[in-house]
């Protein structure tokens, strides 16, 4: 804590020194912006073991001070307790940044994305409790050359530490010391190529023992753009060397790699994107798969999932948890607008593990052996834990005031159990979302979202087939109020909450265009929530929630 306070004081002193120097020669341009987020909730959380009281209070105030070419930022955070993740009370973010023409330097906390994230994609997702924030120094230089400024260069180097708290076990923190660099060069509009390199020393705890690792990741990428076509390809290779310890008595240095490709074509009224992924950062036998495995894809590696991101509740209910260590797949997404009133969106994706495994030990022990195959494409066989989805949606504006949207989705997600194939987790769902929106008297709006879902869950002891239905009715008055009611029902006899109906009322009030208060009361069904391919289970909740969002620019 003293370290953080010291760094902040030092940053402010440095900033003021530079500012007064600037002031003596130039006009001092000072500006401040701030934003604030307050979240509070109290109620009962339903879990398999019973009902527990749930209470959270989170307050985040971000203030940015701009002085000529300098920016200083501070986040004050007060979690008592936090809803998800590891809570903080005090200054949780601080930085100083200098930006002049093509040059940017930043000291303190930051996030960074290199290319498509195969080497580095540090980000925060508060709804999951995920945070891969750096504390260090980052320098970026970008410049355009040539008469038409078509030749472009961008380069970044960074170094610093990262304390990654396991979002599913907040008592477990992985510590990394990272140095990395990235560049991209575009000699012409049609061609861009680049590369990145990352080195890290890390300590990954498992129980009372931490495994020390030293990892290197190399990445190269190529982008092409011609007329309506765009293509991008990225390949990364990683080596992780572990020091021997009580758990792993011998040092190991396995290699892993990952590839991502994208091809898109667009013209007015039409756009198609085809994506391909082949992530093999830690191909291991089923008994070695673990979130504490020291040779795994590192938490700051987060590449494209190539599966659709859904926005409505039931469509998002059975997501696929992407395994960046062992997954191959592709996705196709099409947008088509035959006219101003009608838009169509179609999506299909298929993803699976690379290989099937067999237990080849004839005694009572287990020894898995890989069944080799050409694994450049996913498989639909259950042994490969496949996930596939098809989604179609049509949006129609009947008039300026009336909009309708109708979709249909089919998904299957299989988590294969090699020990007992009969107990594999198989979930199939068929979902139809419908939305009707009508605006009247210019400022009043009414919106109905109705979703119907049929599901099959192989792990249900009784009836494995059940349905769920969710209806949201909202009435709004622009620019300040939205009043909503959400009703969800099911005939599922084995829902973890033991309930068959959930109702929640919500009020959104914008007291200015950038200051909003949201209050809700009632019950929520919970389920798996995902962000960037990372998922967590959220327990059903019954109670009161308050969110206050302020922006001051």
């Amino acid at each position, binding site marked *: 804590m003293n370290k953080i306070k010291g760094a902040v004081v030092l940053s402010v002193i440095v900033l003021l020194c530079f500012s007064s120097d600037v002031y003596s020669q130039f006009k001092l341009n000072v*500006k401040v*912006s701030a934003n604030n987020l307050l979240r509070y909730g109290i109620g009962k959380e339903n879990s398999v073991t019973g009902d527990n009281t749930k209470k959270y209070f989170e307050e985040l105030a971000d203030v940015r001070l701009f002085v000529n070419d300098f920016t200083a930022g501070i986040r004050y955070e007060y979690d008592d307790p936090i809803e998800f993740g590891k809570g903080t*009370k005090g200054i949780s973010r601080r930085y100083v940044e200098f930006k002049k023409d093509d040059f940017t330097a930043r000291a303190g906390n930051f996030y960074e994305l290199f290319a498509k994230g195969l080497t580095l994609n540090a980000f925060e997702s508060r709804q999951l409790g995920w945070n891969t924030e750096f504390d260090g120094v980052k320098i970026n230089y970008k410049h355009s050359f040539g008469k038409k400024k078509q030749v472009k260069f961008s380069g970044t180097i960074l170094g610093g530490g990262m304390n990654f708290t396991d979002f599913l076990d907040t008592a477990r923190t992985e510590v990394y010391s990272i140095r990395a660099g990235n560049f991209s060069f575009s000699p012409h509009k049609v061609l861009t190529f680049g590369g990145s390199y990352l080195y890290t020393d890390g300590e990954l705890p498992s129980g009372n023992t931490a495994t020390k690792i030293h990892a290197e990741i190399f990445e190269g990428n190529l982008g092409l753009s011609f007329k309506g076509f765009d293509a991008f390809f990225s390949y990364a290779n990683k080596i992780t060397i572990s020091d021997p310890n009580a758990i792993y008595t011998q040092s190991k240095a396995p290699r892993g790699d990952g590839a991502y490709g994208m091809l898109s074509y667009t013209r007015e009224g039409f*756009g198609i994107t085809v994506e391909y992924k082949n992530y093999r950062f830690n191909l291991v036998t089923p008994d070695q798969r673990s979130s504490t495995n020291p040779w795994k894809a590192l938490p700051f590696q987060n590449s494209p999932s190539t599966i659709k991101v859904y926005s409505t509740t039931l469509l998002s209910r059975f997501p696929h948890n992407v395994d960046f260590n062992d997954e191959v797949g592709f996705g196709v997404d099409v947008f088509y607008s035959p006219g101003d009133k009608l838009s169509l969106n179609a999506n299909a994706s298929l993803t699976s593990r690379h290989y099937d495994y067999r237990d080849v030990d004839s005694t009572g022990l287990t020894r898995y052996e890989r069944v080799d195959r050409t694994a450049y494409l996913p498989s639909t066989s259950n042994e490969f834990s496949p996930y596939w989805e098809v989604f179609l949606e049509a949006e129609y504006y009947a008039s300026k005031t009336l909009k309708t949207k109708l979709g249909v989705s089919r998904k299957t997600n299989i988590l294969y159990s090699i020990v007992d194939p009969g107990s594999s987790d198989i979930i199939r769902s068929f979902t139809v979302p419908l939305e009707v929106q009508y605006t009247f008297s210019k400022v009043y709006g009414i919106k109905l979202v109705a979703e119907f879902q049929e599901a099959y869950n192989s792990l249900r002891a009784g009836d494995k087939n059940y349905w769920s239905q969710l209806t949201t009715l909202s009435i709004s008055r622009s620019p300040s109020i939205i009043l909503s009611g959400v009703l969800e029902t099911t005939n599922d006899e084995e829902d973890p909450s033991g309930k068959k109906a959930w109702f929640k009322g919500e009020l959104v009030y914008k007291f200015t265009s950038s200051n909003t208060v949201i209050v809700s009361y009632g019950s929520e069904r919970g389920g798996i929530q995902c962000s960037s391919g990372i998922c967590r289970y959220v327990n059903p909740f019954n109670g009161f929630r308050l969110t206050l969002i302020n922006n001051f620019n």
Partner: protein
Amino acid sequence: MKKLSIIAVFVSFFAVNFSYSQMSDFDLNDLDGSSVKLSEQLKKGPVLLQFWATWCIPCKEEMKVLNELHGKYKDSGFVYIAVSIDDQKSVSKVKPFIESKGYKFITVYDSDKNVFNSFGGQDPPYSVFLDRNGNVFKTYSGYIQGDDAKLDSDIREALKIGKN
């Protein structure tokens, strides 16, 4: 509670004293890889920056409205820039979505959300309206059906600011 009171006072102080401040410049790539510099766009007139993502439904509803308003006021100098904060998982769908809709306004990529964060964005849809002097004229968080009337009136007001 004492700490919270301090935060509230601190934030309110800055809100009152430093509103309508001038914001930082940025240089982001558009859908064709060309640079778009905020300071260059401000020379044309007031600029509305809408931070959005392909998975954000209200963002796309607001975008349809802003596209119509852009068509109505672009000849008067109004500039609308759609800043995509889609990250690596959905950024490949930005260009196909925009082109399929036939939208002609400027769209730029802010995949690492650096510009979004520097403008104080928390969740999309979030928009910052800058007058032609680069001062923050309005910020908008969220979108409600019927907001087009309010946006229309704000654009007309912004077009009057700093006009010679």
